[in-house]
């Protein structure tokens, strides 16, 4: 086997191969339909639109890898969004106050993650049920904070996320740094054990892994990504709205699965979820620029998502049967 063949084989066996190929395919389709796609300002605006789902999907991926899922991310985002928008001050010079609010937001995100983690990890409530239930608590609190959409975030906050340093857009930096952060977490025992408990809970327990703490840890890490995603979303809308997060719960799961994360846990990576989220987001672009009648758009979107999910799963099961 030549060196090239070996390299091709290694590449095609990498869990990132299918998600990257899929995302690339859709990017090409998008360029064909929308020639302006590669213009800097279009790239920037796409990045800004895609980044909340990218970050939330990364968080969902961490939890899925640990063998659970989180349906409460959507309304969790609503809660964080309302909290930040209703409490930040637009008065110039309120930096200290605003920093405190952002810090409190992170604490709330970690708290929601930890609550889910405790229900799932220590009380052994199936994650599907536990997070379905907590999602309504988050929504309830969000409605209490902002009964009607409102609030405001300072201009500088929105400007910051849209800013660019040369070619490096802040949003792109946030995504890249998040991916790097995951590689760091993976090198700690926490990261490794998240894969272990997702792959085989029994074996992990037998090996003396603190399974409860690791489950809680996976939720905490996941919700750090959710928090970043909420910041990106809030920078775009600049307002608080308790309904804003809802689609993220299931979209993030779909994005992670398209990105090669197994629903049964133990395999895949948040980096794959980045490409899954891009795929999912670009589908909307493509449909918009394809000139389809509005009444068909939702149906076609569903078909494309099914095709993407199907190709990921077919390729994975083909690999499994080969080995």
């Amino acid at each position, binding site marked *: 086997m030549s060196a090239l063949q070996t390299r091709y084989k290694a590449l095609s066996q990498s869990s990132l191969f299918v998600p990257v190929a899929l995302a690339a395919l859709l990017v090409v389709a998008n360029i064909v339909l929308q020639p302006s796609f590669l213009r800097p300002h279009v790239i920037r605006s796409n990045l800004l639109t895609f980044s909340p789902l990218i970050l939330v999907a990364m968080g969902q991926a961490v939890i899925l890898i640990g063998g659970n899922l989180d349906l409460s991310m959507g309304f969790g985002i609503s809660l964080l969004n309302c909290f930040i928008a209703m409490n930040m001050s637009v008065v110039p010079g309120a930096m200290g106050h605003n920093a405190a609010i952002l810090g409190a937001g992170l604490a709330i995100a970690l708290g929601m993650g930890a609550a889910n983690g405790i229900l799932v990890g220590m009380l052994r409530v199936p994650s599907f049920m536990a997070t379905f239930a907590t999602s309504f608590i988050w929504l309830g609190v969000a409605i209490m904070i902002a009964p009607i959409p409102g609030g405001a975030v300072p201009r500088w906050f929105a400007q910051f996320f849209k800013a660019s340093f040369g070619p490096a857009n802040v949003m792109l930096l946030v995504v890249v740094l998040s991916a790097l952060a995951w590689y760091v977490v993976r090198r700690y*025992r926490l990261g*490794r054990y998240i894969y*272990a408990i*997702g*792959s085989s809970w*029994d*074996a992990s327990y*037998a*090996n003396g*892994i603190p399974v409860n703490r690791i489950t809680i840890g996976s939720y905490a890490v996941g919700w750090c990504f959710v928090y970043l995603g909420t910041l990106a979303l809030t920078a775009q809308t600049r307002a608080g709205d308790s309904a804003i997060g809802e689609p993220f719960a299931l979209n993030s799961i779909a994005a992670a699965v398209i990105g090669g994360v197994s629903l049964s846990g133990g395999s895949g990576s948040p980096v794959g979820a980045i490409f899954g989220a891009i795929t999912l987001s670009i589908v909307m672009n493509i449909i918009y620029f394809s000139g389809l009648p509005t009444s068909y758009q939702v149906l076609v979107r569903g078909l494309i998502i099914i095709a993407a999910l199907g190709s990921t799963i077919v390729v994975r099961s083909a690999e499994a049967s080969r080995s």
Partner: protein
Amino acid sequence: MPAYVVEARQVSKNFGGVPALAGADFSCPPGSIVGLLGENGSGKTTLSRILTGYYRPSSGTVRYRGEVVSFRTPAEAARLGIGMVHQNFSLVPDMSVKENIWLGCEPLGRAGFVNDRRIGRELRTYLDRLCPWIRPEAKVSSLSPSELQLVEIVKALSRNPIFLILDEPTSALERQQVDAVFTLLRDLRRSGRSMVFISHRLHEVEQICDSIVVLRNGKTAGTVDLSGGGPVDYDRIVNLITGNREIAKEVRRFAEEERAPLLEVQGLGDGLRLFDVSLRVREGEIVGIAGLQGQGQEELLMALAGFRRTVAGRVALKGQALALHSPRRAIEAGMVVVPGNRQTEGLFMDRPVFYNATFPALVHRRGPFPSSRFERETSSRLVADFAIKASSLGTPVTALSGGNAQKLVVSKWLPLGPKVLLMSDPAKGIDVQAKAELYRIVLELAEKGTGILLFASDLHELITHCDRILVLYEGRVVDEVPGGAVDEEGLLSRCLRREPSA
């Protein structure tokens, strides 16, 4: 130094009021290997799980190196040097061999990162001695059952245990591999380590153990000292295990006359593990499939049962061509399987006995919905006919011992009147008594004309029960011997494709 490394006195454990262990005594002197024997359900697993920190005893005391201990988690026991080789393995499938061996006690490097490069000397030592061909980077999910078993053993040994429990560590291994494991265990014994060896194979227990503790119904039935070196009193051990019950003698009258062919297979292949397999099973005939580990035995049975896709070959049942595309089709044609893994493919473990017993009959019964009377009558008849021990018909199958569960797997098919029974290592991990009863059912079926295709990893089982034995090698049938005309050594050398040494 205390006289025993581990000493359990009057240990009991109840699960929901049902005693799994009822005042068992057990002790293990330093530098020795103690065999732990007993039927399925006699409490061996419960006892080993208490000693390794999975369960806490309901009553009784456990001493470890002289001190009374009560472990809350397996991790606590492991920290004190207690190790376990699990029967169902404790390996994480999505991780590499190396990561698995270090799992739970990873060496840390700079900044608290897991240090992947530091593979301990022990890892290489044990891997080289037992399975040098396994790469430390290989994913565990890509290993064969025997390789999994070896890695499980390497993992336990790498942690340098003072006291190690091995739960049926040899059931998935070939003879040479068993020898390698035994040599290693003897070396460890010489260096003062203590071990408990759980097995159903008496001759292996005899080879490696210094003494035997026999459990029966959750109590210690007796101990046998083997260190004297005299002849081993098998009858006494078997009596301790069974409690002097008569074990039905396994006698097979080999079918003399030519009977009508039932199952005919021509040139069957799946392109991966099976190539050009042809065979014939006549009415009432028991045909054995022998071979070394992983030569396509299970694949052949699963292909015939409709689980596994085939790319070539013809199959006919009673002269009628049969397309093998689903288990449902095979069952409708009268070909049923006793799969190798009864927990996942044979039974619905959480469902009650009656549900499992009547399931095939329900699915494949025509006509109106079955009454609960039908369920009750069918299942109670099966339970009575096959002496399946269950506290009630409503008991979930998880509460049954391995042998009784396996009898249920076989008997549930009988209301359908199967023409061919495919059996994949049906006696694996079940005790002497249950094994005898299981084969009694099989022989009765054969008497009534059912054709049986039997794969067993224990060659002795094949020799005593089969009319003919086919030898598989790398997915092909390479040999055929009449059942009565060969001994274990002879059959093994045919499996190895070696001429028997004269």
